[in-house]
């Protein structure tokens, strides 16, 4: 049974990730049920609003700080995270299932020689054990999994757990200055895709497929996305055609997404595409073929021509 929870808080550019708030909230709920202690750790240099973590039910956070930690480095961050988890003897550790979470959670699992379940979409307490729901085969099946070891680590799929703030409580922030940083793996450059929201982090996604016929026709997809504050996505056919970057690809060999709203435009709904998006809360399909498989998972559909429907939709939303 877990007595000491540790939540890893991920920051990029000094901003705490929404997916970490989700982990804090879920962690504090579970800790309450199990009557366990809980605290958080964050690694970086200048980080904004750390005390806000209190509002998510965790009232102590340690900030491991050094100027050389401004950029993420897997060697530096893993080493510090492992050391901290061991120091406080954490036995249940939660992280967001982001690139960073997937880098450092396995390193900790090896050190603690413990069970790790990644990409969980639910964590439930059964008696004193935690049972995780972990999708497999790109969501075509679900597994219920438990760890076999005294300590356990879980990573949570972003956008699945709710991150609502439940109070105005302020957390106690303890800053620990770090002397030396292991930069055997050193990020020397970060290029941000300017003004572009990543599909894996968006609440709304508008995706386009091969039916759009040309790269320039994604202009209306971008316009619709801008109107909705959404990220743009794509099917593999659109990526393979060179119309969109691979970072936009949704599906089994792209990104798995669970936004509140997913709008699929001129996408047929091949099994590999459905795998990546069918856990979205609401799905809208726009496809001129009324028998397209995408309508099988859509909540609402328009069986019409995207070149008419999308401009009309943009106009309607402007009203």
């Amino acid at each position, binding site marked *: 049974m877990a007595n000491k929870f540790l939540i890893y808080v991920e920051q*990029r550019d000094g901003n705490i990730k929404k997916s970490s708030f989700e982990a804090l909230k879920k962690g504090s709920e579970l800790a309450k049920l199990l009557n366990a202690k809980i605290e958080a750790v964050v690694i970086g240099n200048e980080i904004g609003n750390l005390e806000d973590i209190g509002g998510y039910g965790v009232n102590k956070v340690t900030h491991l700080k050094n100027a050389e930690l401004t*950029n993420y480095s*897997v060697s530096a961050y893993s080493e510090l995270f492992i050391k901290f988890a061991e120091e406080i003897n954490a036995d249940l550790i939660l992280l967001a299932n982001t690139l960073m979470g*997937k880098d450092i959670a*396995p*390193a900790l*699992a*090896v*050190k603690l020689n*413990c*069970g*790790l379940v990644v*990409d969980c979409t639910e964590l439930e307490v059964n008696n004193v054990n935690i*049972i995780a729901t972990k999708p497999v*085969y*790109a*969501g*075509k*099946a*679900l*597994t*219920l*999994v*438990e*760890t*076999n070891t005294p300590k356990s680590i879980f990573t949570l799929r972003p956008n699945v757990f709710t991150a609502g703030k439940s109070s105005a409580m302020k957390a106690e922030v303890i800053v620990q200055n770090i002397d030396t940083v292991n930069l*055997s*793996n050193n*990020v020397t*450059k*970060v*290029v941000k*895709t300017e003004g*572009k929201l990543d599909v*894996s*982090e968006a609440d*709304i996604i508008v995706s386009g497929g091969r039916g759009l016929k040309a790269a320039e026709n994604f202009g209306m997809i971008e316009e619709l996305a801008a109107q909705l504050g959404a990220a743009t996505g794509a099917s593999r056919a659109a990526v393979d055609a060179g119309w969109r970057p*691979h970072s936009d690809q949704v599906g*089994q*060999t792209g990104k*798995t997404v669970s936004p509140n*709203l997913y709008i699929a435009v001129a996408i047929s709904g091949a099994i590999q595409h459905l795998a990546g998006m*069918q*856990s979205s809360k*609401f799905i*809208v399909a726009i496809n001129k073929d*009324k028998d397209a498989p995408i*309508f*099988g*998972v*859509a909540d*609402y*559909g*328009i*069986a019409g021509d995207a070149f008419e*429907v999308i*401009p*009309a*939709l943009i106009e309607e*939303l402007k009203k």
Partner: protein
Amino acid sequence: MKIVVCVNHVPDTATRVNISTNQKTIDSNGVTYVVNPYDEFAIEEALKTKEAVGGEVVAISLGNETNKETLRKVLAMGVDSAVLLKTEEAMDSLSVAKALAQEIKIQNTELVFMGKQSVDYDNAIMGQYVAAILDFNIVAAATNFNLSGNKIIAEREIEGGKETIETSIPAVITAQKGLNEPRYASLKGIMAAKKKVIEEKEIIISGNFVNVIEMKKPPQKAAGKIVGVDASAVPELVRLLKEEAKVI
């Protein structure tokens, strides 16, 4: 330089999943198995690196007798030799990682390529596990890789951007789509592969770190509604999104 590439044998992504009667795994009846798609990028990068710096490429796969099909394909692409770590038992990721790491040590290599993710369990952590066990550097989900001497410069996509990483061997690199264009096996390669030996080693597992209690199908979505067949349906769609779904 000796280069290792780890390859997994997985159901084709077009597979329609049925759960087997034990309710813990999928029913493999009628399922076509393939080389894990991301591992093709790993193999290509291993072969390209060998072509640039010399040496040999060894493929390792952990699984049962049927993994040999995948190893044959990999040998046909130009990999020099292959090792099958043979087990009939289901193993969790960390146990697999320990077995792979042990074999990598035996191979005495400093550079390991893997895929970013297996398309069966979608864990995307094997490279990170193996690197941590062996105390190697890790670049996960690389879209660019350069080796000069001991030094590695790699790139990867992160949420909302791209980062450039400098590190050195010994290292594990996991391959993301975009890293390269995997080659096809040539006829000559396929013929040559038939003569190459696949070394088999029985492995014994010491126990799993996680248990699968149950595997099940996700809840089925109720059929949605077709709001209309042209642009005239747009106002109704927007109303539904605002008032019924409350998502915009």
